Structures are given as C-alpha cells and as structure tokens.
C-alpha cells in the first residue's frame, strides 16, 4: 500500500465520524428570554467542549419537530419534556432544567435511552454540609422535614451516609398537622434541613416554619436561595450556569459515545449562599462559615458528575 493512500485513508477515517455524527437539538417550550438564555449557555458550553456549532440546534416546540433518529434531543423544562414524551420518539433524550420529582414521575415505558440534569441538589450534599456545620455544637440534632408523600426525597434518604457530628431526625409530616409536636423538636434542634418539597415549603407553612425556627434560634439549610431572603441561614442550590455546564458535559459525552447511562439523574455543581445577618444573629462566625463551605465543597460528594440512577 502506498504511503499517500494510507494518509488519505486515515484522514477520511478521522473525518467520517464528523460527517455521520448526530446533532444535539435544544428544544425550548417557548421563546421566553430565560429559556433562550439557558439554551445559549448550553450551546456555548458545548462549543467550549469542542462540539461544532452546526451540531447544536435550538428549536422550540412551536416549530415543526424536525430531527433525525440519531439526534440527541435536549428538552429544557418540563413543558418541552412533556412534549418529547408525547412524541414517543426513539431518540436519546437528555432532560434538563427539570425538578427531580418530575423525573421520578416520568413513565418508565417508551423512552429507552434518557438521562436528566435536575435543578435540585442531592440531599446527600445538604446533609454532609449540615453535619459539618453542626460540628462542635451543643445541639447536635438535625431535623429533616418533608411531607410523607415525597417519594423522591424518601429514596434519597435511604442513600444518606451516617453523620459524623450530628444526629439526623427524619420527620415526615402531614401538611395539616404541621405545628403539632414540632415546637418541642425545634427546641432541641441544632439545624433544620429544608429540602425541596412543594407540599411543605410553601405559603403559610414556609413562613411559619421560618419564623418558628428563628424564634427557637435554629438555623435553616434551605434548597433555594430565595429562602435566604425569607429567613434561612444557608441555601445549597444549582445555578443556571452550573446546570447548563452539566447538561453540556453530558451532551458532549453523548456525541462522542452516542450513548449514556440511561435513567440517570445528574446533579449540577452546588452553590451555597449565606445570609450573613441571620448567621450573625444565630452566633455563627461568617468568615469561618465561608471557609467551612469552601472546604466542604471540595469533598467527594460535591465533585462534578454526581449522579444517581433512577
């Protein structure tokens, strides 16, 4: 075989995957600026990961669904996800910007190859951070409030590791009987965890819990930075950029391997917000608190690529 033919053959073989590779279709539920911005963030991150611009397309569900069978569909938000589900496509689907509870409720049939990047942070990270915060404190009991109907949270609770510095008290509550028996627990609690639970952390219940916890000087570790403004001391959450980055990472990997582990829920990098005023009122040293957070974020549980299978 002549050398020049070998060079030509190698070049063709290198370019062939590009020619035959599938595209990534970012599917928006509508043309709201927030969704467009999120899609642009994902695309930008994928381009940064080496994906060619022509391989990433942004469409909304109002446009005619024109995708190849080997394309990766990446619906943003629950509306786009529901649209893809109703299409019963055979494509690989990567749900992003959805809640973990939504993913848990996805029908198991119909979609063979799917994954999800959720906006939630895993309960494990929240518990690890709470355990670290509770180190050396007199009140070493960590209260974990959730509604009894929250199955997604119940599954995560099963995977929680053993705490080193505190005792986790799991309190499944009925929404109607929220106040009953909780005040005595708050009296002895060192920290109150507030994971995402729409039935519990809303309206009257959320404000009541935040006010009661403050009255009993119990710091709250919440799941959303909005709760920081409502009275929680800490919040561990996912930023939009982090979710876009994690989505781009998984999509890029799919482009390279044409597959991913199906049925997995991926968590984005965690961000932690602190309400300095609440922290000082609860006798926490803000600087030490920030240092502790930085140290915690370097733990294994906080590293990139954390996921759980469904």
């Amino acid at each position: 075989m002549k050398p020049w033919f070998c060079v030509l053959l190698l070049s063709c073989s290198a370019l062939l995957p590009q020619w035959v590779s599938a595209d990534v279709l970012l599917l928006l539920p509508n043309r709201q600026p927030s969704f467009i911005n999120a899609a642009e963030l994902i695309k930008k991150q994928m381009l940064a990961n080496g994906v060619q611009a022509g391989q990433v397309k942004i469409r909304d569900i109002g446009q005619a669904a024109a995708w190849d069978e080997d394309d990766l569909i990446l619906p943003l938000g629950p509306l786009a996800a529901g649209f893809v589900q109703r299409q019963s496509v055979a494509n690989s689907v990567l749900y992003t910007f959805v809640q973990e509870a939504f993913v848990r409720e996805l029908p198991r049939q119909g979609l063979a190859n799917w994954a999800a990047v959720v906006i939630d942070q895993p309960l494990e990270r929240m518990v690890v951070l709470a355990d670290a915060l509770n180190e050396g404190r007199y009140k070493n009991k960590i209260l974990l409030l959730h509604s009894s109907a929250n199955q997604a949270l119940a599954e995560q609770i099963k995977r929680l590791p053993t705490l080193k510095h505190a005792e986790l008290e799991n309190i499944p509550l009925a929404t109607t009987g929220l106040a009953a028996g909780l005040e005595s627990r708050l009296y002895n609690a060192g920290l109150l965890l507030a994971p995402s639970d729409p039935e519990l952390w809303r309206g009257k219940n959320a404000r009541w819990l935040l006010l009661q916890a403050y009255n009993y000087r119990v710091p709250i570790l919440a799941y959303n930075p909005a709760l920081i403004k409502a009275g929680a001391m800490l919040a561990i959450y996912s930023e939009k950029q982090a979710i876009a980055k994690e989505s781009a990472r998984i999509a890029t990997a799919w482009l390279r391997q044409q597959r991913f582990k199906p049925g997995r829920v991926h968590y984005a990098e965690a961000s932690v917000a602190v309400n300095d005023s609440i922290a000082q009122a609860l006798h926490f040293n803000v600087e030490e608190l920030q240092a502790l957070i930085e140290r915690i974020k370097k733990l294994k549980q906080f590293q990139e690529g954390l996921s759980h299978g469904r």
Partner: protein
Amino acid sequence: MGASSIRRQLLSLALMPLSLTILAVSVLAVVASLEDIESRLKQRGQDIGKQAVLMSEFYFYTGDQLQLNNVAAIVAGLEGVSSIRFLNAQGEVMVKRRNNAADKDLDDQHLFVIPIYSKGISLDEVAQLAGAQTELSEKLGSIEISLSKAALTPLREAAYMRILLVALGALLLGVLMVYLFGRRLSAALSETIEAAKSVKRGNMNSRAPENGEGEILEFQKVFNRMVGSVQQNEVQLQDRINSATRSLNETVAELSQSNRELAATRQATIELERSKAISDERARIMKDMHDGIGGQLVASLALIEKEQNSEIRANISSTLRECLDDLRLIILSLNMRDSTVSAVLADFKYRVHKKLQKLEIELIWEVDDIADHISLQPQQSLHLLRILQEVFTNTLKHAGASQIHLRLTSEQGKVRLSIDDDGIFTLDEEQRDCHGLNNMQWRAAELGGNLTVACNEAGGCAVRLDFAAADLSEVP
C-alpha cells in the same frame, strides 16, 4: 337716573352668572371635599388595616388569640376606630372589640375588610425554568375594621364652613369688583349721556370725556366725532341758510325792483295810453277848432276885409286876426308832442317877432343851451307859452317899452327865465290881485316853479320864472 339704571343692570348682569358660577363651584367643591374626606377616611382605614395586618399576621399563623386580642385592643384605641374583628379563613370570629356598644349603626361604607394571606416565597429563575411552584398564597383569615361615623361629622362641617366662607368671600369680592367696574363703566356712560343731552339742548361744543375703556372709549370717541361732524354740518347749514337768505333777499329786492319797474312801466303805459287818448282828443278838438272855429274866423276875416275901410272894420279885423292867432297858438300847443323849452321859445319868438317889428320894439334874445335838453309835455308847453304870451301882451299894451330882453340861464340844475323891458312898470296893489297875474303864477306852479313880477332897475317890468330842469322832465 340713567347711570344708576346702567349700574343696576350691570350688577344684575354680572351677579347672576357670578352667583351661579360660585354656586356651581361650591357644589363641586362640596362634592370634591366629601370625596376627599371619604378618600382620606378610606386611606386611613387602609392604613389602619395595614398596621393591623403587620401586627397580627404572625398571630394568624400561630392562631394565638391572646396576642390577636392585644392587637385588637391597640387598633381599637386608634382615633376613629369603632370596632375591629379578626376572622379565620372559615369566617369565624376569633377576636372582636367594639369601642361604643351603643353605636350599633355601623356604616358599611366605612367597614374595611382586609384579608390576610400567607404569601409564598418567590423562588429563583432556575426553579421557574423547572416549572416549580414559585409562589402560592393561602388565605389565613381577615380583619374587619369599622370607622365611626362620628369622625366624619366635624370633617364635613369644617369642609362646609370652609367652602361657605370661600364662596361668600368670592361673592363679596365679585360684588365689589362688579360695583367698582360698573361705577367706572356707568360713570363714563352717564357723562357721555350728559354730553348728548347738552348737544340736544344745542350746545354743539359739548363733548363726552374720553375716560372709558375699550368699547366705551371707542363709543365716546365716535360720539365726539359725530358731534363734531354735526357741529360742522350745522355751521355749514347755517352758512348755506345765510347764503340762501341773502340770495332770497337779493331776489326779493330784484323782484321788488322789477315790480317797481313793472309798475313804472305800467304807469308809463297808462300815462302813454292816457296821453294818447288826450292827444287823440286834443287832435280831434284841434281839428274841430281848426276846421270849425278857424274856418269861421278866416271866413269872417275875409268878409270883413271886403268891407270898406273903417275903424270898425279895422277893429273887427284886428280882433279877428288876434282870435285867429290865438286859435293858432292853441292849436299849436295842442299839436306839440314832447317838445323842449328851446323849441317852445323859438316858436314863440317866431310868432311875436312880426308884432314887435311892427311896433318897433327891439327883442334881445339870450337862451342857454340847456334849453335844448329840457323836455316839456304839451300841457307844460302851453303853460310856458301862456306865461310868455301874457307877459309880452302886458308889455305891448301897458309898458310902452322899446326893448324887451329875454334870457334863459341855468345854474346847478336851476333854470331862470328872465323877461325885462325898459318901459313903465305900473303894477299897483289892485293889479296884483288881477286875474292875469294869478293865472301866470298858477301856470308857474304847474311847471313846478315860481313866478315873480317886479320893477327892474330901468323902471320897467321884470318877470322871473324859476324852475328846476329835473322837475320839468319829471312832470307828467
């Protein structure tokens, strides 16, 4: 009277719309004030409600009725609050407090119901993208706050009083301004009316004082210009009347002159007609005398001439010849038409010349040229001839004169006929009253003159006939 009437009219005209305007504005102000009071009351009720919500919101969460009761006591202590009630989500009264138990008639319009909601927490953008329920609200209950009606009464009374005072002030100010303006306006008009009355009385120099404003001032200026124009027209009219009067007078004078001339002409015509009639009659008489008496005298003279010479025949012949001469003179006088003194004298000289030559009496004849310019009517000519005939007859019969001097002179329109002889003047007192002298004086008077008879320096007779040339000419 006129000014006061105008002033009253102005007051009526201005005050009626002013009063209506003030009334309308007052009504609007009352409505606006009442709405403002209601708005302020509503705002106060809402403010009290917000304060009550802030104070009681947490206790609604916890259901702490003791604290809600404390809050109700505080709110009920606020001014104007009549009652307050806290109700739960099911509408059941949790706490109520009423300040005045007798005040049962609570006005529903002043009852403020403020619902209390448990507001959810707005999550971040990521949660919104994921479709998370970002905000939910749940009604916890409500607060009913009633404000007392008594609080409105003083506010309303104050508003009424304020608007009433403002309206009265505006009305008084309006009346004052209308009075002042009306007085000024009516003063200008009344002075203009006085000026008009003065003009009506005939004082065209009267003018309206230009002390008004706007249209009044324009009216006064126009009035003054009009009066000035009328005055000028009057002057021009008076001039025209004077001119017409003068022209009429002149016409009347001319007409009078014409009438006089016409009368004179008529009179002249009458005189001419009469003169013609006289002349015709005279001509008839003259013809009759010439044909009748003259013929008889000539026949008689011819018959007597045929007789033998005798003294009787001579006397009769002489008498007949004198009668014949006298008849010729009469006929001559009757035949004269518009003769002159010069012609009468010349004719007389011709007739008497032979007789004087026969008696050897010298006749000195001196007649001024004016005699050619003095005209005589036939009757006047006869008068003058009779006077001359009488004077010469007397001289020839009685004076025994050898010379007769006749002169006619004139001086400054006065004419004198002088006849002097060198005979013997024998005129005594008896003769002065004789018929011949009286006739001469009568005829002299008919000529418009005067005749005197006296003795001259030569002892002869001196006859003077003075008359005016103009009188003769004008004598009909």
